[in-house]
């Protein structure tokens, strides 16, 4: 049977993966581009966060998270520029940045494949000291997530946010309306990978180490979270959709926690993630989506 500890652990991790899911939502849904940069930018965020924690000065963990966001955003910006300026296909641009960032991430971690946080001070230890030993991590994770969802929601409702959303929807219309679609892709992919970098930064501080291999399959986990959330919690309005996507990551983690407690091998996780995404995509269980599939369907219905 699943223990309370496994349950809270699943939720705490889920709250971190929610931020990853929001990042993937931005690229996959808002910009209509599956962005593979994620597998690299999450490690970039994690490596930066870990390095800052090892510095050990006051507020280093918080500062590390901010720089992790910027580091992730920089990776996303490179992908966007490869796509818009050099006309490399989005998928390939993401793969190239993912590959290139591997070397950068190793350097960020001082040429080590694994960087444990020896000093021990992280945002989570502070949160535990401030709230309570038992619930500190969860309260902190929930607060950060709520703040990010609110910020993202209000941003997507601004003039700039509308232009960004329309870019994934209909690039021609956006250009005809005086919006530089290349700039919007730059903004969107930067923001998306900024979220991913932040998630990586939090993950590292939560688990107490950074690992060069921690990014493998993260984009699939993000996609799975987006799809699960949308299917379970609905997509009728933007705010509902953002919350749905975030909760999708928590559900995903909880399901994994249960599966692990029932004896599934931890190393099978990635296969399960891939299978979940395959099933969801093949069933067309998209909810209301920006995808071409639905566009055609609506045309038929009209």
């Amino acid at each position, binding site marked *: 049977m699943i223990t309370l500890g496994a349950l809270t652990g699943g939720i705490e991790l889920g709250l971190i993966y929610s931020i990853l899911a929001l990042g993937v939502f931005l690229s996959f849904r808002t910009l209509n581009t599956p962005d593979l940069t994620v597998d690299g930018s999450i490690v970039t965020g994690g490596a930066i966060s870990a390095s800052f924690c090892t510095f050990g000065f006051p507020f280093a963990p918080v500062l590390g998270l901010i720089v992790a966001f910027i580091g992730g955003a920089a990776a996303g910006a490179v992908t966007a520029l490869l796509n818009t300026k050099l006309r490399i296909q989005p998928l390939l641009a993401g793969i190239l940045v993912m590959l290139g960032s591997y070397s950068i991430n190793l350097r960020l971690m001082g040429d080590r494949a694994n960087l444990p946080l020896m000093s021990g001070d992280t945002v989570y230890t502070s949160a535990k000291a401030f709230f309570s030993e038992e619930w500190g991590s969860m309260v902190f994770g929930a607060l950060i997530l709520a703040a990010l969802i609110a910020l993202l929601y209000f*941003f997507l*409702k*601004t*003039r*700039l*946010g*509308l*232009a960004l*959303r*329309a870019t994934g*929807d*209909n690039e*021609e*219309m*956006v*250009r*005809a*309306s*005086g*919006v*530089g*679609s290349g700039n919007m892709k730059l903004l969107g992919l930067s923001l998306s990978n900024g979220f991913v970098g932040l998630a990586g930064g939090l993950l590292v501080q939560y688990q107490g180490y950074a690992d060069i291999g921690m990014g493998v399959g993260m984009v699939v986990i993000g996609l799975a979270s987006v799809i699960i959330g949308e299917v379970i919690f609905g997509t009728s309005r933007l705010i509902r959709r953002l919350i749905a996507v975030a909760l999708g990551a928590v559900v995903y983690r909880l399901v994994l926690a249960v599966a692990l407690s029932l004896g599934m091998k931890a190393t099978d996780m990635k296969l399960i993630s891939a299978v979940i995404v395959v099933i969801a995509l093949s069933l067309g269980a998209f909810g*209301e*989506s*920006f995808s071409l599939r639905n*566009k055609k369907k*609506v*045309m038929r219905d*009209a």
Partner: protein
Amino acid sequence: MLDIRGMNKIFGAGTVNEKLALRDVDFRMEPGEFVTVIGSNGAGKSTLMNCIAGVYYPDGGTVTLDGKDITRQPEHKRAKLIGRVFQDPLKGTAFDMTVEENLSIAYHRNQPRGFQRGVSKADRALFREKLELLGMGLENRMREKAKLLSGGQRQALTLFMAVIAGPRLLLLDEHTAALDPGAAKKVLELTDEFSQAGGLSTLMITHNMKAALSHGTRTILMKDGGIVMDISGAERDAMTAQKLAEKFEIDNDRMLL
């Protein structure tokens, strides 16, 4: 207003598929003019329009709008002065966004896009007031997503979005071709109405010769990348679709309808 000089456009230069889509086109439009463009497929109509809109750059010649050379200006920058409606109703609106969000994107094309509220109360009131004038009931569906609208409604909305920010030039690329006759008529009526806006010049491509002669103030005919006929005034009033077809040996029956 719009002044095109010596415009050339070659597709697939140096390949076996090389095609001279525009050859030394000179074309001027005055403020307030409504020009209809006819010609068979491959005559260069859409290429001309796309070179004006900046979808691609011409290989030779210049485009001047309001005295400013925009030949090499990026598409999204010149969109501040140019409104466009495409043939495909799906291309004109952002599918998964609401009617008012679509309008907002079009309406604020001349203003900085920052962290201002996407659709303000004042915007909403203005959109409602103007949508009522379309007479399609869209004013009551402002919070619905664009994909829920019919093709005709969507094309009317696109047309409205194209003129809402007060452009100097309106480009219509067979914008009624994909609509049923009733919706096409309505959209053409709206086109006539909007083109009356002070100082707005309209360029409309159509495959329908009757529509080409009954709408607007001037008609040009394109063939093999050049303008072979340019009529207005009494000469145009005396012209019929039948005469046009005979004169230019247009073999396309569809254009006579």
